[in-house]
């Protein structure tokens, strides 16, 4: 099994271990990344990235090479030495657009008792989000 991580998810997927390619079943791609292969391309929400002319590097036999699409989208993808754990990151452009929109990016994190809190739980209140660390 290959572990596919994003900032908000952790999925076990069937994939041949590789540090350059991450071929996943189309259904598994959606479950692991939120992106879906459609006739018009690789899509999430209202964004669709058309499959390039060398389609065989992106789509084959009902599988999607997520690593190729990630590179195409200028998003960081990092693999473990054996290619059995992947992290699919967010792109700088998308992140900066989000920061410049001034809409505070939502997140969900636990407190010390394990209870989860989301930023959106605090709508209608002013929030001072301030960091600290022991180190």
């Amino acid at each position, binding site marked *: 099994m290959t*572990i596919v*991580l994003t*900032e908000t998810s*952790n999925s076990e997927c069937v994939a041949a271990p590789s540090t350059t390619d991450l071929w996943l079943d189309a259904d598994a791609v959606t479950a692991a990344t939120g992106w879906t292969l459609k006739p018009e391309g690789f899509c999430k929400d209202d964004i669709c990235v058309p499959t390039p002319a060398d389609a065989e590097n992106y789509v084959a036999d009902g599988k999607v090479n997520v690593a190729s699409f990630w590179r195409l989208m*200028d*998003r*960081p*993808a*990092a*693999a*473990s*030495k054996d290619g059995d*754990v*992947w*992290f*699919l*990151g*967010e*792109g*700088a452009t998308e*992140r*900066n657009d989000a*920061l*410049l929109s*001034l*809409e*505070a*990016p*939502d*997140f969900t*994190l*636990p*407190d*010390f008792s394990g209870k989860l*809190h989301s*930023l*959106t739980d*605090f*709508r*209608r*209140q*002013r*929030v*001072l*989000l*301030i*960091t*600290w*660390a*022991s*180190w």
Partner: protein
Amino acid sequence: MDADVEAARPWVAEASPTFITLIDQNHLLSSLYNMVNVPQAVWIDEQGRVVRPTETGGSIDILREFDPEAGAFKPEAMARAGAAKALYMEAVEDWARNGADSRFAYDPDAARQRVSRQTPETMLAHAKFQLGRHLASLGRVVEAEALFTECRELHPDSWNIFRETTEKMDTGIAAGEAFWGKVMGLGEKQYYASIDMDGMP
């Protein structure tokens, strides 16, 4: 922002804050909000809009004003740091009372101008950091350390990555030789970037 929750727990227990304390073991906020040090802060209004983007949260850079003979920071540096913290807290309180009418809350254009940008390298650093964190949790420490080394090179301005991933002293504080070497090499750069606030030293 501690990978090791147990390292943070006694500090937070002792401070027993009245506000909610969240644990960000994977430094998700560094990636989402482009944070590079602690304390950094973001002010978010009732609609979830940022009115002060990520900035130093009440500290100023006095690190290079340490007096080794006295074993302490120079008194004038301590006084400046104390004044900066008090001023920042007054600003937070003013915003808490007055909201959008507070002179410390930026209008959208002013807030946007102060947003610092991620780059492909910093986002790759965040990806490798989070991959490294996962591998470390699986016991693959050597592989994780190699990734952390890459992260520090990809995002040299991130003290969060540097201090989390370099050697800690017995106290748990990452303030050993490597830390001070990097601080002394800052040159014109600041350890805590100055913020735009009237009266802030």
